[in-house]
């Protein structure tokens, strides 16, 4: 691969507003059933405006991200189709689609837009109504159920069509990096299982405290329901079967309906609004196609190198890490790759509870994708929402304990795309 170079922004940019819907299956809740993409995106956008103390008329431009708008919403121009829900008729906007990395790209685009001087106040939102499918010739509030048989063939869309699909070269991803890690550090399959189960356990403990999370029932309770006293015993039992060689059911993110938005502006203007501004110091970027060896590891390494170099920061400066861990091992592996945990030792930190939301090296205090839920394109923006909330000190009972000033996010998704932003409180 060929390395990239990241410079400093022409002007400093900060997040001044955030909004998010819960991640959920709308059809399971009579209060939510029938809600549409426009309403979800619109709600998150208006929440972000209220958070900042802005009206729709104050927003200059917006970005719309979704992993797969044609499949989930039968829309090719979704930015146009949501704009009026939050008072943006006639204003400029753009749609972008980078699979599960869309949320992080949405942040990157909005920040670069403001940094360039093109616009002052920019909203960036992402949405995915991932738990249902559009019905031909019916309005958006009517949808049909979706099954694994619908989703799995569609996953091909993130692979190169000239070579990767035909050569059977794109399906290695879920186990590839954890297998490499296991061999490199000589762990047994049982040890890997324990580490992953501990991450599931701590993630659920955080999600139980997070009203936006999708799976909130603690494993103690799920264990008890089947007559077990020990949640770890439950996690390694046949109630939680293996879905790949290394992953169990709890190692895969459940699909969700969800939306999230941020609003950014020049840091010099940010004090005028309601919230403590959170500066975006830089965003590293790297992409590799699925046929490329150890692609998730390589793009994580490269994007982290860029953002450390551009910001002059080092892993010791990072107080909080969010990882888009729709495949659970990513949480540990990415944390080591960006230097947040020591190489080959991170799994011990997980086992000691140090990476839990109430540990001294917190990762994913919102519960992580496997408990929080995965609304594909919107997941990254939900991570940005959580990082900003934590840096403001507004995360309530799941507030991390180390008084974080600086957060890193390891955005990742289909294809493969990686973005690594660093966010910092403004003194």
């Amino acid at each position, binding site marked *: 691969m060929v390395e990239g170079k990241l410079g400093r922004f022409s002007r400093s940019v900060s997040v001044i507003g955030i909004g998010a819907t819960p991640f959920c299956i709308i059809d399971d809740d009579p209060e939510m059933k029938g809600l549409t993409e426009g309403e979800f995106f619109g709600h998150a956008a208006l929440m972000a405006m209220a958070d900042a103390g802005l009206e729709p008329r104050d927003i200059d431009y917006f970005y719309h991200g979704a992993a797969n708008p044609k499949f989930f919403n039968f829309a090719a121009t979704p930015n146009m189709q949501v704009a009026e829900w939050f008072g943006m008729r006639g204003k400029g906007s753009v749609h972008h689609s980078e699979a599960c990395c869309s949320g992080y790209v949405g942040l990157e685009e909005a920040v670069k837009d403001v940094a360039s001087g093109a616009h002052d106040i920019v909203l960036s939102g992402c949405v995915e109504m991932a738990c249902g499918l559009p019905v031909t010739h019916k309005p958006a509030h009517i949808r049909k159920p979706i099954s694994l048989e619908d989703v799995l063939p569609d996953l091909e869309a993130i692979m190169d069509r000239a070579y990767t699909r*035909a*050569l059977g070269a794109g399906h*290695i991803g879920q186990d590839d990096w954890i297998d490499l890690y296991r061999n490199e550090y000589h762990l047994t399959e049982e040890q890997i299982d324990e580490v992953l189960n501990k991450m599931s356990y701590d993630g659920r403990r955080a999600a139980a405290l997070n009203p936006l999370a999708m799976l909130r029932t603690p494993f103690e309770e799920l264990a008890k329901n089947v007559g077990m006293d020990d949640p770890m015993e439950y996690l390694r039992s046949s109630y939680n079967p293996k879905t790949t060689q290394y992953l169990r059911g709890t190692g895969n993110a459940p699909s969700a309906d969800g939306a999230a938005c941020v609003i950014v502006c020049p840091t010099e203007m940010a004090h005028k609004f309601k919230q403590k501004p959170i500066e975006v110091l830089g965003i590293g970027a790297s992409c590799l196609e699925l046929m490329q060896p150890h692609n998730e590891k390589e793009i994580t390494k490269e994007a982290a190198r860029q953002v450390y170099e551009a910001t002059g920061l080092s892993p010791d400066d990072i107080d909080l890490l969010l990882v888009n861990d729709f495949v659970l091992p990513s949480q540990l592996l990415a944390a080591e790759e960006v230097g947040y945990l020591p190489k080959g030792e991170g799994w011990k930190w997980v086992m000691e509870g140090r990476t839990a939301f109430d540990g001294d090296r917190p990762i994913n205090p919102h519960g992580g994708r496997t408990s929080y839920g995965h609304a594909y394109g919107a997941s990254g923006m939900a991570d940005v929402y959580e990082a900003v909330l934590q840096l403001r000190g507004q995360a309530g009972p799941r507030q991390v304990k180390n008084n974080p000033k600086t957060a890193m996010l390891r955005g990742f998704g289909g294809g493969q795309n990686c973005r690594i932003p660093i966010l910092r409180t403004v003194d």
Partner: protein
Amino acid sequence: MKIEKVVEKFYDGLAEHKLYGRKCKECGAIEFPPKYACNTCGYHETEWTELSGKGKLHSIILASTLNKDPWNSELKNYSYGLVELEEGVKFNATILGIRRKNAKKLREMLPLPIHPVFYEKEGFTTLFFELDEVEGIE
């Protein structure tokens, strides 16, 4: 500048049991499967070259319920793995003949020598790999 057909030539090559790649005119790195430009050094020009197909398998990732390949549901025993061809290119591929039962033993013996399998699909030939004979493994 003429637009050169690369994808079609690659698959035509597979049908004749040949592996075509492209070699960078500046750094000599090989693009496989072939592309126009070099992704090792970032130079714009490459030229056709033929690869031997001999190489090594560096990893064995089993296909299971959630990472199976819908394109290849007819295959009985296959896994995924990191392939390195003797000309220096590395890529992910589908490997035939590996099953859960022999995977554990094979993993301990990695890297293992492999050869290409030209596999006929409807309307095109694709490329998988297979282990050379390994002593003591069925």
